[in-house]
């Protein structure tokens, strides 16, 4: 943890976090501590199985769905609250910490209903409120112009890239503070990837984004800060430009230069 720096306004703070999928027999994430800054893009990179996606899923407690999974030590604070405290409601947490998945997964509903879903489950029924929010979110996800004429047709009729941007629109519709993205471009072609990256670039003004990516080029293109994980440990964490131009750790250097991974 030689690269620990002080971040002035962290939105997520990790303090000695360990996580296990099997009730603590083996830790998938081992004693990780660092801060994630507000309204910036933070990229998690590392080889497969290094725990970057697992850690991302800790932030909105999606791992709760797995019965034997739990945070075995340490503390994750988001906006100053310990998210694993018994008083915290995971449902409320997820309204603040949205997530975009690796494989785009719009519901088999209309485009409109997909975006409105998060608002509807919060009990918003007023039609004009919903319409306004849906338009705003679709514009925010740079999808409005492409779908405004067919809001009521099925979301499954869109192209892959459009579907993924729809998922982003669905996420930002509920106005979270943090958006977690789990390899959002891995199922997309290069052109769709470029569009999503462009979108991420625009979203950083309103949201704090944490993105897991397999592509080091993508991390260097879009992120402000980058964390490199290896076998469940945080190896290096610094400004993206610093990490890619002058890695302090040998393993980081080996990984980014393609010697393993």
């Amino acid at each position, binding site marked *: 943890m030689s690269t620990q720096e002080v971040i002035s306004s962290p939105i997520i703070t990790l303090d000695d976090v360990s996580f296990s999928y099997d009730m603590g027999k083996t830790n998938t994430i081992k004693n990780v501590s660092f801060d994630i800054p507000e309204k910036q893009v933070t990229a998690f990179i590392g080889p497969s199985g290094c725990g970057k996606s697992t850690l991302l899923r800790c932030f909105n407690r999606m791992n709760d769905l797995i019965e034997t999974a739990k945070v075995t030590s340490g503390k994750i604070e988001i906006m100053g609250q310990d998210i694993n405290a018994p008083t915290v409601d995971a449902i409320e947490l997820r309204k603040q910490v949205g997530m975009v998945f690796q494989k785009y997964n719009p519901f088999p509903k209309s485009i409109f209903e997909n975006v409105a*879903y998060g608002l509807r489950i919060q009990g918003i029924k007023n039609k004009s409120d919903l319409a306004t929010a849906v338009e705003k979110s679709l514009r925010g996800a740079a999808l409005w112009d492409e779908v405004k004429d067919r809001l009521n047709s099925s979301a499954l009729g869109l192209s892959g890239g459009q579907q993924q941007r729809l998922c982003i629109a*669905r996420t930002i519709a509920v106005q979270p503070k943090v958006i977690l993205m789990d390899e959002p471009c891995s199922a997309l072609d290069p052109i769709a990837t470029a569009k999503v990256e462009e979108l991420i670039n625009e979203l950083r003004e309103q949201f704090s984004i944490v993105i897991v990516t397999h592509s080091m080029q993508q991390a260097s293109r879009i992120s402000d800060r980058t964390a490199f994980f290896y076998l469940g440990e945080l190896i290096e964490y610094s400004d993206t430009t610093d990490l890619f131009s002058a890695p302090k750790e040998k393993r980081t250097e080996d990984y980014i230069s393609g010697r393993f991974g």
Partner: protein
Amino acid sequence: MSKQSRSSDSDSQRSFSKKGRSTLLGISKDSWIQKFFGGNALLAIVFLLAICGFLIKEAVFFFPDYHKSLQLFRQSGQEYVTLLEDQYKAQKSAYALVDQAYNIERANAGAAELEKITAFATARNKVLDFAEEAYDEWDDANDELEDAQDEFDDAEEADKASAQATLEAAQTLEKNLRTAWKADVSAAVLQQSSLSEDVKDALRQMQPDQGMSPFQMELQKAVDAKVAEFAISRNALRDSVKPLEKLWLELRDVAAAAKDKGVTLKTAAERKAAYLEAVQNAPTPEARQKAQEQADAVILAAPDWDKEVAPLYEATPRANEISKNLLQAIATAKENLPDPATLTDSLAQERLKQATPELVKAREVVTARTETLNQWRHDEKVGFFKSVTGFFLGADWVTNSSWQDFYGFLPLFTGSLLISIVALCIAVPFSVAAAIYTNQLASKGEATFIKPTIEFIQAIPSVVLGLFGILILGESLRDGAEFLGIPMQERLNVLNAGILLALMAVPTVFTLAEDAINNVPSAFRDASFALGATKFQTVLRVIVPTAISGIIAAILLGFGRVIGETMVVLLVAGNKISIPDFSDGLGVLTQPVHTMTGLIAQETGEVNQGSLHWRALFMVALVLFMISLTVNYISQTLIRRYSLKG
């Protein structure tokens, strides 16, 4: 690759060679297995086609045969008689309500008097029991008195004096014994302390040779006086139908006799045809000659239909006159019947109110049937289509009737449909909810317990369920209905069968619905949770809507399961062939019905192969098969569409 002409490398030749594989009749093991499965699939298709063909072959002559039967029904004049019968029945059913209203009203208005009559009758029996000995003695004396009287009357002048003496002695004895009996009666009356004074007086005033006590008659008269006006209109209505009844019964015999001749002709023709066939197939000339003789002996004499039905045409003016009078009587009755509001009993009021539309209906029936009657011709051809509509829309399934058989499919179809709908209304909420719960909300332990338990229901033999329905469910339902104050006349009814079939449908619907829900990609669930949805919101807004076509398919297959079920409905549905009375609202569920499956199972064993009844049963089977096939096809299509989408 067994022949490798270019390469001389023996190693490669051996490694690619087919020689090591075992073969049978020159076909490899894999091919055999493939052919086995392919053959089985083919066999299934062949069976399906064979079943279709068999059903159609047996059923197809139903319509022409039924047409012939209906033709004879008209030719013999039975149809004409039915037109009279309809009028009679319509009037009767209206009258029945009026009569009920009258009796209820009479019982209520004269309740005090009727109670007194009952009290008197009961007390009278007790008193007479008590004074039985005295009565017997008096009775003997009375007989003697009568004999003495006869003797005196017949006596010669010379014997008159002695006869007179005997007579007087007998009179005195009778008088004394009568007094003794009355004393006994009075003593017995004293014991009946709970009686009112007038009853006691009436009892004391009884005479041994008295039939009905004047007291009783007075009371009866008082009761009748209370409903006197009602009685007049009721009796007028009752009597108005009598001429029609007489005419109907009279002509019924005429038509039945004509029909018998028609049937005789038909069987004779069949017999002759059989003999002629024997002539063709006879092995020896002697046998041929014998068959020919037998054939010749059968004389086909077609009845002279015009003559047979002539009495009907002659009766038409009378029928018109009777109908006219009947209409008049119904109209008068409608005017003269008391206003329901003036009745003292609420049930009587209700019955009388119900009678009014029935009377209107009776008038319509009488008018319509009379009109048909006047245009009726026995020699008019019955349209072929009539046999088709008569089957599919016929409301009567009457077999082995001495009058006429009718094969109306509607009561069976309604029965089957009603039971299936009840079963699904009960089974679907339970099984779909259970499927959602097990798949989405239950812990692993619960799921491993619930799933096999529900699926185990399937293992219960349906005859066992049927017995359970007869012995336990029927009784419990009746007790429950009694407790809730709902009348339930029949233990075996739609509800009972519906509940048991629901039990049989649950495993089917549950398993398939659970599969459908299980096939919803977990990505949808994750996305919903990530947006802050609760488990319930996720299930109701994402998972169920996504799986809905699969769930509907599961429900349809459940429907196919229950509509084809036989044993339970045969045992439990009540087996009454009539369209249930839907005007009863939910009370329709307490009525007995018969079903397509139950009827086939019940009647197939008792009919002659190739008879009209036999063909009718096959027609029902064919329709049932078509329904099942359609339902299955629709659900398969739904499942396919749904699995493509998933």
